[in-house]
């Protein structure tokens, strides 16, 4: 049976298809925009089209992410904490700690040797340190989100940005730009700020064994570098890290169907 996993996130909506041999046979990603239902329909149709399948070919649909309960054709909805844990475990069974940074929240997850969640921690009260934080600061510097990783590699000096609040951080960035601070230094400071918050979360659950990273922010090499420098350890980044939740959901579908 082929199963589908759909991760309805705050910034993007992802879909993945998996066959009975646990092979990912297709995935897709669209921006969520104003309607997560529309985004879900769109990415589902996209992924089916990519795999040359129709809805009738799908035996079970598991949804995850913030909009998971807003998908009428879902057979089951599961939190993305469980889905990312499984999704990362499938990719690398050695991983014991996962950092997932999405659009509006970040999660530290500790898993056992079977991929079961042992404990987790999430950010509270503010989206500082999440994808939205990067989006806002990139905009303040007039950069594309996708360029941040490369730009920060050019940094020569250490600059500090507080990690308390997304909006305040944006103000700090604007002030630094205004006084002529080199953009690469500011970008690196933003990455360091994200790493500081993430490490605080990771320490809450305890880092046990290899650390893996999923979620869209894992695509940013600058953030990964900042984490590796601060932790003094290698961070395993999944291929297509933003769809690990959807893949985990599709796998849960295999187990449930």
């Amino acid at each position, binding site marked *: 049976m082929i199963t589908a996993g759909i991760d309805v996130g705050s910034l993007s909506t992802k879909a993945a298809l998996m066959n009975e041999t646990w092979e990912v046979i297709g995935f897709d990603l669209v921006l969520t925009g104003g309607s997560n239902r529309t985004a879900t329909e769109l990415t589902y149709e996209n992924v089916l089209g990519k795999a040359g399948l129709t809805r009738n070919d799908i035996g079970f649909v598991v949804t995850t992410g913030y909009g998971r309960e807003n998908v009428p054709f879902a057979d089951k909805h599961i*939190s993305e*904490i469980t889905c990312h844990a499984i999704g990362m475990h499938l990719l690398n069974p050695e991983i014991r700690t996962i950092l997932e940074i999405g659009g509006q929240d970040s999660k530290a997850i500790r898993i056992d040797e079977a991929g079961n969640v042992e*404990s987790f921690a999430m950010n509270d009260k503010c989206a500082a340190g999440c994808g939205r934080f990067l989006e806002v600061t990139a905009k303040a510097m007039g950069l594309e989100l996708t360029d941040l990783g490369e730009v920060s590699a050019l940094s020569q000096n250490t600059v500090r940005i507080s990690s308390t609040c997304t909006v305040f951080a944006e103000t700090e960035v604007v002030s630094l730009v205004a006084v002529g601070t080199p953009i690469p230094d500011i970008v690196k400071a933003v990455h360091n700020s994200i790493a500081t918050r993430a490490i605080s979360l990771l320490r809450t659950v305890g880092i046990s064994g290899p650390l893996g990273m999923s979620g869209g922010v894992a695509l940013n090499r600058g953030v990964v570098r900042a984490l590796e420098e601060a932790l003094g350890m290698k961070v395993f980044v999944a291929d297509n890290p933003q769809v690990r939740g959807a893949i985990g959901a599709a796998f849960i579908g295999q187990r449930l169907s």
Partner: protein
Amino acid sequence: MEQERNGQRRSVQYQNLLRLIGDLRPDAEIDGPQLRASRMRSIVNCHRLVEAYKERSRVAYVSEQFPTEIAFAFEAIPWNIESMSNMLAQSADVNRILQLTEEQNLSRDICSFLRGPYGMMLANCYPRPNVVLTNNQPCEGLSKLIYISGKRYSVPILPLHTPDTIDEDSLRYLVKQMQYLISQLEGEFGVELAPDSLRAAVEHSNQAREYFSETIRLLETHKLAGVSRELHEIFGMNYFGAKQNAQICKVLFEEALELAKGEEKKGKRVMWIGQAPEESHELLQYMNRVVDIVYWAPLWEANALVLDEDEPLRSMAHRAILYHWNAERMRVDTLRMCETFGIEGFVISNVWGCRNMMGINPMLRDLAASRKLKYLTINIDLVDRNNYTFNHIKNRVDAFLELMQ
């Protein structure tokens, strides 16, 4: 001063309270039948409320876990200013109360369990106290609020300083303070404390605690719907020393005994640690469908301590020290609870701004990890709806419930 006194007439304060909660309180929906003990407690609370607003009544503001037997021995009504916050949380007009505190420049970052009672005082809804009785608090904010309340109503503030360690010196030190406090109360109320009055209060307290402890013992082997919650309410009410409280505890024990004969509630057992929302709160309703929640505070070792009827002050002192938050003792006690009650997970609830809960969080997480227990940490506001929405925490609650299934 006299004008202020007139403004603080209890009949006026009672009308203010009724306007606030009587007409505006929305219907609470609770899954499952309500226990007889809960209904009885509501009636006792109503009676207490009505009595407290009578001009001739003796009202003693008390802080958490104050030895209320002393208040009852003086026929005073103990009024826990903090527990009123839970009642506030059910009020549709809570915003107006909190707004009053902001108008007095109280920061919204301060725990709403403190802003709520302060707002009630500002709204002139609490009954004017005759005296304020307080003991050492893990919460410094509550201690300050207690002192503020005494100043506000220009009444004596009688504190007990509770040491942290249990030894002969500490017990003697606390007993001496209690004796002094009693002499102060005698002066304030113009009566001499009759030994029989204290003895009766202690007897009532012990009777209640006996049933309370027996009910807790039933929870060791049975999952009894609503029983742990009722124990939590009785603990929070801290009405030990009143005859009615012994009655409530007796009825609860009898009901628990009946429930234990029936079908057991399903779901893994988790322990709710920290401030708890009122029973009909959406979060509890949501979680109750999946797990069996037992509440931490009623299970504390200190609650089971039987007072020595010949030397009541000494045993009250012992209990007061046990109630004092001490991380090492708390760890041992929590570990005992995990083993005794078959706990499989923790819900660590932290009201925004509560440094005490934040302080013990690492100890609780370590303990959970050492016993391979799952835990959920949630930061919420149980009173101020401007600081909380279920959607903010739903994701982590769902993840936790998935772990428990």
